[in-house]
């Protein structure tokens, strides 16, 4: 069958089940029921502190077919996923589903567990290009991987679509009764936002820490009433992989031109205004957009209500300069962001659900005015791919892409028109991650295209000297530069299911031949 973005998807996928096809970004709102939670209540005098991960596995009764969850606040410095999976593998337990909010290069040991059938399922909302993504693309995983968004995952957990048997939460600091925070300890990472839904809904919740402090571990982010066990290990992560070095504005002239054009679009469409809200990524071009927006805000003397997302030192500077009244932070990218979140009450953390879940009583993305997004590919209907490279190999997952695009009033994709030899604007993207109906403007170095559905924006931009062109023209320019790519051939085997944030299937990834 075809879904509403025209993608051919099976009605039923083996080991995934019946497919609910994507039917529009706003098709699935209304009354919702959250799933119930099973827990073992803790009586006075009970001890939660456990000596080893192995002992934890005994206590939670780890067995074949369970789903265990992990969270990527330690990013490429995370040791916890590997530590736990190694202990599980040693026991000969198999058919495990790993529900991780993020998978990085450091998680390469998963590939062997996939090959040996210890891990047969993966659900993930951010995945870095690398060994695990490639193994999934090759079809080594027994069940198709499920790719979600940062808001879609908490939705799936809260609705019961994704049941977590055991959540292992990396805690940079914890006390022996399960209170955790991410702002102290040698693996300090800032917020633990992605783990919050798991803590609330998993059958068993385990805090894994290398910094056990006397009770209580204030400032508490995830509290004791959600936590069954606490286990101390030597190290939960490598600080060098946890925080990024200083993330700076790009020096690439093409990136700077794109950023300038994007900021001019924001200004010309009236979004540089008192109380504005803004989100951008941590990449060089995204930060360059922030720098240009900052200039306009200063010129016009406006103060924004908030900036959101993964927070970098650059956004902290904007907060401290008085350009925004507050920050909403789902992930701290650098030490400056961690310190700010710890010390400044205007720097507010938000859980993954608060950030982007479409089925709660309103996520922060709904309050966003302007969102700056990237793209691996974008088609002439403005559908965006951030999941697969042009060769069909998995290189990412939505992250907050389709959440923020849906919520924000002005969703702008900024990208080079070509990346090396590869055209970015195409007739058809390899995989749809974010539907074109939620993308408003595409800004490239060779022109700006406005989604025809946004006549209001077209009207506001038509009397400016900005280079507004139809998106088809950008596609033609890209093809003139690179030549027309030969189509990639795929087998019928579905290796990953791409869920939209509401749990419907927006596309599938088939194994490339």
């Amino acid at each position, binding site marked *: 069958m075809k879904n509403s973005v025209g993608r051919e998807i099976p009605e039923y996928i083996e080991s995934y089940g019946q497919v609910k096809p994507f039917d529009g970004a706003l098709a699935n709102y209304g009354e919702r029921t959250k799933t119930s939670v099973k827990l073992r209540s803790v009586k006075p005098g009970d001890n939660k502190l456990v000596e080893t991960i192995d002992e934890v596995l005994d206590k939670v009764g780890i067995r074949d077919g369970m789903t265990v969850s992990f969270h990527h606040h330690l990013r490429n410095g995370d040791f916890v996923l590997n530590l736990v999976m190694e202990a599980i593998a040693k026991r000969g337990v198999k058919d495990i589903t790993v529900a991780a909010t993020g998978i990085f290069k450091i998680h390469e040991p998963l590939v062997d567990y996939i090959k040996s059938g210890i891990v047969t399922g993966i659900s993930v909302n951010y995945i870095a290009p690398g060994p695990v993504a490639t193994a999934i693309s090759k079809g080594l995983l027994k069940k198709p991987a499920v790719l979600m968004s940062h808001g879609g995952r908490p939705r799936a957990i809260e609705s019961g679509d994704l049941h977590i048997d055991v959540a292992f939460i990396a805690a940079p600091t914890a006390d022996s009764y399960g209170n955790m925070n991410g702002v102290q300890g040698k693996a300090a990472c800032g917020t633990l936002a992605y783990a919050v839904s798991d803590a609330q809904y998993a059958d068993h919740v385990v805090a894994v820490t290398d910094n056990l402090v006397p009770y209580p571990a204030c400032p508490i982010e995830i509290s004791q009433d959600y936590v069954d066990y606490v286990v101390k290990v030597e190290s939960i992560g490598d600080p060098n992989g946890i925080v990024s070095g200083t993330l700076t504005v790009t020096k690439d002239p093409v990136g700077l031109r794109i950023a300038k054009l994007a900021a001019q679009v924001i200004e010309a469409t009236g979004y540089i205004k008192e109380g504005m809200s803004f989100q951008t990524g941590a990449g060089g071009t995204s930060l360059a957009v922030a720098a240009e927006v900052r200039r306009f805000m200063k010129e016009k003397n406006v103060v924004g209500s908030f900036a959101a997302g993964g927070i970098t030192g650059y956004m902290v500077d904007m907060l401290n300069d008085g350009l925004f009244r507050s920050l909403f932070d789902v992930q701290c990218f650098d030490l400056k962001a961690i310190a700010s979140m710890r010390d400044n009450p205007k720097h507010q953390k938000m859980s993954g659900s608060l950030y982007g879940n479409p089925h709660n009583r309103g996520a922060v993305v709904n309050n966003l005015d302007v969102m700056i997004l990237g793209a691996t590919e974008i088609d002439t209907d403005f559908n965006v791919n951030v999941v697969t*490279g*042009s*060769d069909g*190999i998995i290189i990412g997952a939505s992250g907050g892409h389709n959440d923020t695009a849906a919520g924000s009033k002005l969703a702008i994709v900024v990208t080079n028109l*070509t*990346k*090396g*030899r*590869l055209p970015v604007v195409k007739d058809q993207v390899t995989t749809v991650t974010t539907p074109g109906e939620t993308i408003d403007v595409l800004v490239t170095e060779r022109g700006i295209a406005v989604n025809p559905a946004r006549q209001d924006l077209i009207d506001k931009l038509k009397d400016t000297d900005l280079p507004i062109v139809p998106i088809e023209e950008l596609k033609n320019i890209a093809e003139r*530069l*690179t*030549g027309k*790519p*030969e189509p*990639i051939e795929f087998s019928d085997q579905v290796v990953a299911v791409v869920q939209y944030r509401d749990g419907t299937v927006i596309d599938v990834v088939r194994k490339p031949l």
Partner: protein
Amino acid sequence: MKINKAAQAGALESSDVLVTVEPNPEGGIKIELETKRVIQKQFSKQIEKVILETAEQSGVEDVLIKAQDKGALDYTFRARVQAALQRASI
């Protein structure tokens, strides 16, 4: 044009290509393209055609052309192949 020795043009920088040419004792124009898999799959035929045409237009009959590609566009391939052939024919 006769290829007398090995010569290079270009660079292993992003969006460029390093072209190495040398005499081909077996005769004919032989092309070796090294590039990223994603480019190989979608553009290798087109790139090999551009290299072959550029060599033929230079009047070369026997040459081994090795192209180490970092995402170069057609005009870059033409320029680098021409330059390498010129250098090899001096």
